[in-house]
């Protein structure tokens, strides 16, 4: 069974004078899962301080990140990797600071200009409003006893203002807005303002300047154009800077991040005055390599294996708090690795339990294939999945592409050898086809098809999704029984490795008995109730009797620690089994749609409603409708297939809550490692 890889706990002891070499060595072996040191875990040891180069690196990284943001160096920008040594020497010769100087002056210019353009735009807006009022700009202010109130209004205030001794200029323009300029005595200011506020007044600041608003406006426009051209130049300059510095910025970002990561290792480990102690998990298979690598590379270090963690819970309980959870390193081949994604969607498996990825890798594509079950849909799935696996590296898309590819292969197998279908039509005609159904044999006039397929397909022309409904329902229930039985056995195995077989049998064995008993009872009852003409109660009595005995065993075994639950959970098992009928139901629904669509489209093509146009329309409709079914298949078959794994299968045994194995290692994308050059 696929358990996570065995882990060993090691202790690395060394002298502080060799700390930097030790950190390098830790990253080089790529197998150290560091256990963080906690304060007061060991007497005499404290948490360390970051390496001396760390603060400077942090400061530089901050600058680099700020520049990346301002210049628009996003994740999507492609850059050429710079060799590790080169970037290191560039950083240590203050290149970051030089680039910053270079970039900052341009950025400052851009900010100033941006502010100016905003201001000019605001002035322009005010001037546009004022341009219809026949008052020169300098006349709005500079009086001792008169005050000017200028602003926009919703309705005309002239009538209301006639009560006050004042001069009113208005301009009503639907497009630009309604402007009013009131010149009143200083003592009347409050009265005028209260009248205006009832008309929806909102004040605008009169821009400085002399002459008519229109002439000032022309000047402002001029300035704005100059500023905009200047801005365009600066944008170009920034674009040049981006091109010039993007490689350096990305590379230094990565290099500095690595430096900081390394520099902060001492904070995670135990330090005394002259020594350091590192606790870490290492895959058992790699312990010896790690030991020799570290001891030979770093003078004065010693590596000791503390324990090789077994799977029993007793070992967990006996260990110190920070050593309780061993990390989970998935132990899967190349194909199954792609199916770790659905497992992780639920949770990372514990170190002491089966990793369900392998079961998902077997059953998810199979269920998908059974639900699709059509050669015509399978081939695009295979192509799309293979293409996706080739081009994409994003884990979400890879997971989907994997299911499509392997699911497509299963769909092809089921479609060709089991259903004998392509695009909702059987290859071969047979007597159990519905009246409105077409077959490829009929459409293409190939009378030798039955000979080709004879012996390959069950029921002459393959299983009819809409005809052999009973058979498909039974089949999916049997698949469900097998699937669930595997789940129960996994649960038993998990408990057996964690607590020993006796404990496991007492805890999970009861459910296995209950499950088998329930299956037998249901088999008997279903036969009597559904096929009452073929079976009598006496025929199925043995099944029901044996089943009942099994169920009683289950209740006796479980009632002690589960109480009334032991009985209440039984109907849930029936629900779980019946849940698998979705395998047949979704296939049926797709077949039903395909049948209707084929009837419509082929009718149009064959009937030739409007001659050639009808035929073209018919083909277009045919393609569109099948594309629709195909797209729906991804959703329905994919999601329901996944659900059967997550709800029915995994809920029976999977606990999760593990910590994923995360070794110290350096990933270089933007810088070229020295190791590659040598």
């Amino acid at each position, binding site marked *: 069974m696929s358990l996570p890889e065995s882990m060993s706990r090691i202790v690395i002891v060394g002298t502080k004078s060799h700390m930097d070499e030790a950190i390098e060595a830790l990253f080089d072996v790529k197998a150290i899962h560091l256990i963080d040191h906690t304060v007061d875990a060991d007497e005499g040891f404290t948490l360390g301080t970051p390496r001396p180069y760390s603060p400077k690196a942090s400061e530089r990284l901050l600058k680099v990140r700020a520049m990346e943001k301002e210049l628009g160096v996003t994740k999507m920008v492609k850059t050429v990797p710079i060799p590790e040594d080169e970037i290191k020497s560039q950083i240590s010769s203050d290149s970051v600071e030089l680039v910053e100087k270079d970039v900052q002056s341009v950025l400052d210019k851009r900010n100033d200009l941006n502010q100016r353009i905003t201001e000019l735009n605001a002035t322009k807006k005010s001037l546009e409003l004022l341009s219809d009022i026949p008052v020169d700009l300098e006349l709005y202010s500079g009086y001792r006893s008169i005050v000017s109130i200028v602003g926009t209004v919703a309705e005309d205030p002239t009538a209301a203002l006639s009560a006050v001794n004042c001069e009113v200029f208005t301009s009503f323009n639907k497009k630009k807005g309604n402007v009013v300029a009131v010149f009143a005595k200083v003592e009347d200011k409050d009265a005028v303002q209260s009248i205006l506020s009832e008309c929806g007044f909102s004040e605008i600041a009169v821009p400085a300047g002399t002459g008519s608003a229109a002439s000032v406006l022309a000047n402002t426009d001029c300035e704005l154009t100059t500023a905009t051209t200047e801005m365009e130049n600066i944008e170009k300059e920034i674009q040049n800077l981006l091109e010039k510095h993007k490689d350096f910025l990305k590379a230094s970002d990565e290099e500095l991040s690595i430096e900081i990561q390394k520099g902060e290792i001492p904070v995670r480990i135990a330090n005394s005055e002259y020594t350091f102690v590192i606790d870490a998990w290492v895959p058992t298979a790699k312990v010896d390599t790690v030991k020799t690598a570290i001891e030979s590379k770093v003078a004065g270090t010693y590596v000791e294996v503390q324990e090789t963690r077994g799977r029993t819970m007793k070992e967990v309980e006996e260990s110190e708090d920070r050593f309780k959870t061993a990390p989970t390193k998935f132990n899967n081949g190349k194909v199954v690795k792609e199916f770790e994604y*659905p497992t*992780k*969607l*639920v*949770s990372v498996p514990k170190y002491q339990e089966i990793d369900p990825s392998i079961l998902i890798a077997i059953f998810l594509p199979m269920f998908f294939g059974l639900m699709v079950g059509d050669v015509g849909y399978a081939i695009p799935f295979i192509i799309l999945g293979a293409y996706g696996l080739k081009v994409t590296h994003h884990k979400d898309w890879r997971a989907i592409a994997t299911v499509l590819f392997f699911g497509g292969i299963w769909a092809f197998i089921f479609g060709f050898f089991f259903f004998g279908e392509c695009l909702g039509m059987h290859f071969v005609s047979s007597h159990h086809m519905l009246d409105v159904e077409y077959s490829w044999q009929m459409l293409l006039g190939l009378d030798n098809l039955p000979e080709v397929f004879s012996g390959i397909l069950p029921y002459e022309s393959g299983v009819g999704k809409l005809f052999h*409904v*009973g058979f498909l*329902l039974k089949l999916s229930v049997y698949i469900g029984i097998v699937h669930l039985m595997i789940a129960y056995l996994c649960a038993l195995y998990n408990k057996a490795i964690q607590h020993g077989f006796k404990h496991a049998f007492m805890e999970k064995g009861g459910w296995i008995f209950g499950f088998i008993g329930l299956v037998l009872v249901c088999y008997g009852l279903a036969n009597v109730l*559904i096929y009452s003409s073929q079976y009598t109660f006496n025929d199925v009595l043995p099944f029901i009797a044996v089943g009942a005995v099994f169920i009683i065993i289950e209740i006796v075994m479980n009632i002690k620690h589960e109480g009334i639950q032991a009985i209440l959970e039984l109907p849930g098992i029936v*629900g779980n089994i*019946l*849940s698998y*009928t*979705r395998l047949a*139901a979704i296939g049926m629904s797709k077949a039903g749609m395909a049948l209707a669509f084929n009837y419509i489209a082929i009718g149009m093509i064959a009937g030739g409603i409007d001659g050639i146009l009808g035929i073209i329309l018919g083909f277009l409709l045919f393609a569109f409708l099948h594309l629709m079914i195909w797209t729906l298949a991804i959703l329905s078959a994919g*999601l*329901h297939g*996944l*659900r059967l794994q*997550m*709800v029915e299968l995994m*809920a029976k045994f999977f606990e999760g809550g593990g910590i994923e194995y995360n070794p110290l290692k350096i990933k270089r994308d933007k810088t070229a490692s020295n190791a590659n050059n040598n």
Partner: protein
Amino acid sequence: MADVGLGLIAIGAGLAVGLTGLGAGMAEKDVGAAAVGAITENEALFGKAMIFMVLPETIVIFGLVIAILGIFVMSGM
């Protein structure tokens, strides 16, 4: 009169699928709203949320099984 019986079976099958569909829909409405809320808080909950989200769907499948049994078995097809 045999036709009336067949019609009643068809109505029964329709009710079985339709009413369970309504039931599942009402259940999923609440679960879905809560699930989206939970996922916005913590994206890692997506897998668990999806499990809860699809749990009520089983009700429709039960309805469908009953409908199919009704049509294909009771009508003796």
